[in-house]
């Protein structure tokens, strides 16, 4: 599931699971409530086992997982079983920001798991130059 952060107007940061090769969230779970979908590589949440302890959030380098606001379990993108709805609508409305791609072998996707505030700070400087340091 994708969430879009915007610490400064115009600097939207889509924040979503990158399916790290070593799955630190899955490894961190003391209740074995997280697994990996063999077909898609997506993280699976076994809601019956999840206690909403939040340990996986801190295990994730990008703090991507978040708790459901009123149900007691964690939310992590399951790639909609391989056909993600977010990518479909993003393509349909022509932004093509989120698209479904084949996973490349030589890319370290886990480095894309970054906290959105850090991404926003980089973007601010990229977009606005020196003054970008001051806006966030």
């Amino acid at each position, binding site marked *: 599931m994708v969430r879009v952060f915007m610490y400064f107007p115009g600097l939207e940061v889509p924040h979503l699971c990158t399916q790290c090769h070593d799955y630190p969230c899955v490894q961190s779970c003391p209740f074995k409530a997280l697994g990996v979908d063999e077909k898609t590589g997506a993280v699976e949440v076994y809601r019956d086992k999840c206690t909403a302890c939040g340990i996986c959030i801190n295990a994730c380098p990008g703090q991507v997982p978040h708790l459901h606001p009123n149900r007691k379990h964690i939310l992590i993108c399951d790639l909609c079983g391989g056909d993600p709805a977010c990518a479909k609508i993003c393509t349909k409305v*022509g932004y093509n920001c989120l698209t479904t791609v084949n996973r490349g072998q030589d890319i370290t996707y886990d480095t894309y798991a970054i906290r959105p505030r850090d991404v926003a700070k980089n973007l601010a400087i990229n977009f606005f130059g020196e003054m970008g340091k001051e*806006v966030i």
Partner: protein
Amino acid sequence: MVYGYAGKILEVNLSKDRISETPLDEKVLRQYVGGRGLAAKILWDRLGKRWRSINPLGPKNLLLALTGPVTGYLVGTRICVSGKSPTSNGIVGSTVSGEFAMELKCAGYDGIVVNGRAEKPVYILVTDGKAEIRDAKKLWGLSGRETIKALNNEIIDEFERKERRYGEWKEPAMLYIGPAGEKMVRTAAVMQKVSHAAGYGGYGAVMGSKKLKAIVAKATGPLPEVASPEELRPLMEKFYEASVAYDSLRRWGTGASGYRVGAMTSSEPQRNWQEEYHNERSFSVVNFETKTWVKRYWSDYGCAMSCMKLATVKQGPYAGAITDNPDYELQAYCGTNLGIYDPEGNIYVSSIVDDMGLSGIDSANTMGFAAELFQRGVLTREDFGFEPKWGDGIAMGRLAELIARRRRVGKVLAEGTYRAAVALGNMKEIDLLQYVVQVKGVGTGAHGPRSGLGFMTLIGYPCSTHGGDHTSAATPMPGGETVSAVGDSLVFCTASLGWRYNPATLWPFFKAVTGWELNDETWINEIGRRILHIQRAALLLGGPDVVWDPAKDDENPPRFYEPLPSGPKKGSAVDRAKFVEMRSKYYSDMSWDERGIPKSEDLKRLGLRNVDQVLEKFVR
């Protein structure tokens, strides 16, 4: 069960430090729908009888921010800000885009009504099903960008501390005011993000008068349930497709018009409307695009149109400017109308106007007026402390700040174009109203009627219940201004629908959300008419400082009767006889009498007997 609505509004009394909720009555919602319509109803019920004596900048005025039933579902998420307007003394429904409407609705409120005045600066924080009034001492005096930064950091850090296990907290959404609102500049805007403004109406000053720096909302709940999700989903997709298909707005936003409206239709203000034609190719959108846009697609929640572009200037005298495209209105009012024809200068002035929390149309209209007074020697360097020469972006930026901070002649200019012209005219013993381009205290939009080639008709501004507001212009088309009240009351962005809604898709959408049947006929003859009658009554009552007289004030600005000095329609001006004829026809179409006062029988037909009584007592 009422679908599409949260079903209640949040009431905040700042004098009594009290927060409560008011449930919304289904009957009232069916009669007024939401946003601008509901604002008119609430304002009339609570202030109607003593409208003329209510000081818009006093504690008895109300500040309203209301969503509508389709807000959050229909592309383009907006909120309607209203109250007794410090510019028109009537009711203006001023909508502003951004995520605040979503957060508020997801928190369980269709809107917020703020009453009273706080002793010290405060802000309101709305979260799931509750709200609190908080100290804003540290925020008072901050510019727009500084306010966003400070509030974002304060709220996110606090939420992260409180709910350590939740994960990353998304930033809150906020309505806020800049220094201009704090100083009660009558044309101050209620701002959202960096460049989004509820500009018309001057509600930034109302917030300032209440010592309310911001309203912040962060919710985690869902939007209210809709009547028929099965019907709604395919309709939402249809609207997405239509937005995407509107290629010019998607590619260039309204900014493509900054050159076109001047060069092709000769209806863009130049140097305080002394001309409406320019052929400055430096000001064409390709120059904005290649020199300043750092992000091409920028939209608010749920919008597939993306008419905003992120623009910035990184070097040279205008370095530090950040704004959107700018859109057409600000290209005109913070550009050509100040004699500025370079994108960087225009972006610089827009950026300062935004950061100060001024209305880029209404305050910049005053800036154009002031610059013309400088051109004519009525105001001099001593009045400003510098020389506001046409085309000088740095000087115009200083002028904006002068107004926002009420310094030097800015003290008078902060009262808005009309009031400043009266005050300065009395001081200098000259008729300065000949140079003002406003209607009923509201600077006109950047669309001139003189050439006859633009979209504004001769009655557009004079007969609007919003004064010079181009987004709510009166038109000779069926329904007149009621058609503008649709977008402001259901509360969605008309731009995302290509400016004019299509009744064949809008009303089924409305039904899928609310479950209620509605059509153009009912809107034009009943709901829309009801809203406009109340707004017209409030406008005619006006007060306490100015009361408008329809015979004198349902009128185009004097400048529109001066022939255009240049362009394809050189010599063309508003034909007064034709205007008077159109005005009479419009009054009659709206069931207003020959003096423009809503007719007794139509008020009674629509259940507005109390409006009739007040008009009888004070106006007829």
